[in-house]
């Protein structure tokens, strides 16, 4: 039995993943035409390349349909409950960095921290009759962060894209979004809360639980780990 390695099927994330493995003596490449989602692996035996969307990697690892996968650490935490009991981080890859942060309008000069956000949420609810809306696509991560910090009287509204614009459109009062430099947030009149960093994400190689692995799969993992750490 081979080990299936799932990696993002397009863009910079795929190329950087190829580079990362190449410097460690494992060559990954797309086989056939550019548009075909099939791949090949050289430099190590027993690994099969699967190209798929980064967002599907957590689910496929959890289901055991792939045994290794490259995706953002944010996606694993968002899509798998008790993620650390379901998958294992093999290596942080040092690229694809992005921070999940809470941001509010720059005009909220009275809000610098979660403490302020919580107080404003209470006042907002009393004034407007509904809970302060935070637009995000990272529901689990944001909810767990808010619970841990004891923030109340907010609600999460789903936003799958252009999240920074939701405040201007009055469909949210704050956002929890991914940013690498904060530039897009600033350009949209928003600022990041001082203690509003939810998760610093980067591309990470994960492996599934080994419960049902064969001996040859275990041997392949050992050989791969040896290459990655050498």
């Amino acid at each position, binding site marked *: 039995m081979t080990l299936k390695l799932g990696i993002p099927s397009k863009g910079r994330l795929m190329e950087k993943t190829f580079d990362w493995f190449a410097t460690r003596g494992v060559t990954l490449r797309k086989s056939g035409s550019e548009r075909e989602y099939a791949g090949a692996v050289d430099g190590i035996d027993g690994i099969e390349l699967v190209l798929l969307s980064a967002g599907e990697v957590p689910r496929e690892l959890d289901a055991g349909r792939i045994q290794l996968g490259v995706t953002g650490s944010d996606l694993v935490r968002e899509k798998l409950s008790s993620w650390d009991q379901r998958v294992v981080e093999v290596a942080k890859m040092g690229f694809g960095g992005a921070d999940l942060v809470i941001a509010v309008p720059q005009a909220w000069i009275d809000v610098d921290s979660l403490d302020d956000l919580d107080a404003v949420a209470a006042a907002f609810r009393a004034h407007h009759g509904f*809970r302060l809306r935070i637009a995000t696509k990272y529901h689990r991560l944001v909810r767990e962060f808010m619970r841990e910090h004891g923030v109340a009287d907010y609600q*999460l509204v789903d936003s799958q894209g252009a999240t920074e614009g939701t405040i201007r459109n009055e469909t949210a009062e704050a956002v929890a979004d991914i940013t690498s430099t904060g530039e897009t947030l600033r350009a949209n009149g928003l600022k990041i809360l001082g203690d509003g960093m939810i998760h610093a994400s980067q591309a990470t190689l994960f492996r599934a639980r080994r419960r049902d692995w064969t001996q040859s799969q275990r041997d392949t993992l050992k050989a791969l780990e040896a290459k990655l750490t050498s």
Partner: protein
Amino acid sequence: MTQVNAETSQAIWDRARRYQSVLVGQGALITDADVLQPADTLLDLYGEDIRARTFTTQDPLRGEQMLRPDFTVPIVQQHMAFGAEPARYTYLGKVFRKQESDESRPTEFVQVGFEVFDGKDVAAADAEVFATFAGILAGVPVTPMTGDIGILRAAVIGLKTTERRRAALMRHLWRPRRFKALLDRFGAITPTPAARTTLLADPDPMATLPAVLGLRSKSEIALRIDALRADAAVDPISSFERDLLDALLKVRETAPNALASLRDISVDLPSISAAIDGLSRRLDALANRGIDVDALPFETSYGRTSMEYYDGFVFGFSSNAGLNIPPVATGGRYDALTVVLGNGTGVPAVGGVIRPDLVAFVEAAQ
């Protein structure tokens, strides 16, 4: 040890019906609630956190619905709409809970509940509910724990500080971490952040306000800055009062000793006296019902993190054997919930639930 089914589903339902017959014998009316509950009500009560533990589904016309995580909310709604005091209700059925971290816990289980809406003698009603569950659990290797959220509430209400600060603390009574952070800020333990000092030093910060975006208006921002200014001028909550709150929350003894400790604290914190008198009356009422009050454990902070809508007496019965399971029965007083669900008019209410599957498990492990 993980929780397994100690009995067949049939045996658990039989057990549930036996428990319910005890409650009917106490004069409780059998009632029921819909499995699908409107999500709005639950979200407004519990906040976003409830999504982590409740199954949500969608109806094309009614919108978001949740599989009932408990019966209390719909039973209170029914009572507030159609009932009259005094009333005693019992219900029996499945409740549904998502399990995000422990796969060994069931996502649905049978609950038998007892709710008492009777304000004639609050201490007697508390004792009735506790003693009823204690009776059902006679011979089962479980230990009771009791508490009283009303004592902490009374202490907060009595703090020598502004109404705004008291309200902020009250809002986070059930979130100990945020409660402590607030208390540290109001006690001037946490230094004022530099940005806040700068903001308050500016005589007219609104003059240089960046463009306002979204629904939160300029006047709301100005109002909060006024509130921050007023708050900055207020004396900190004294270390004396903060120490008293700490001492209060640390009380964990048998009920008579806890009562004595709390009486000592109330010498310096007279606002809790009435709540302590209530505890004393409850202990008398429990003794009248044959409960061994001298051995009854009491903890002031019991139920503070897990029993959100309770605001007075709280109790639970937990397995003696250190089995990794939730309490087999829990309950308490929730007068404030009836105010929220009754659109401002509340009634004194106390109740509890028991899980026959957990009782069977505890008995089997004996």
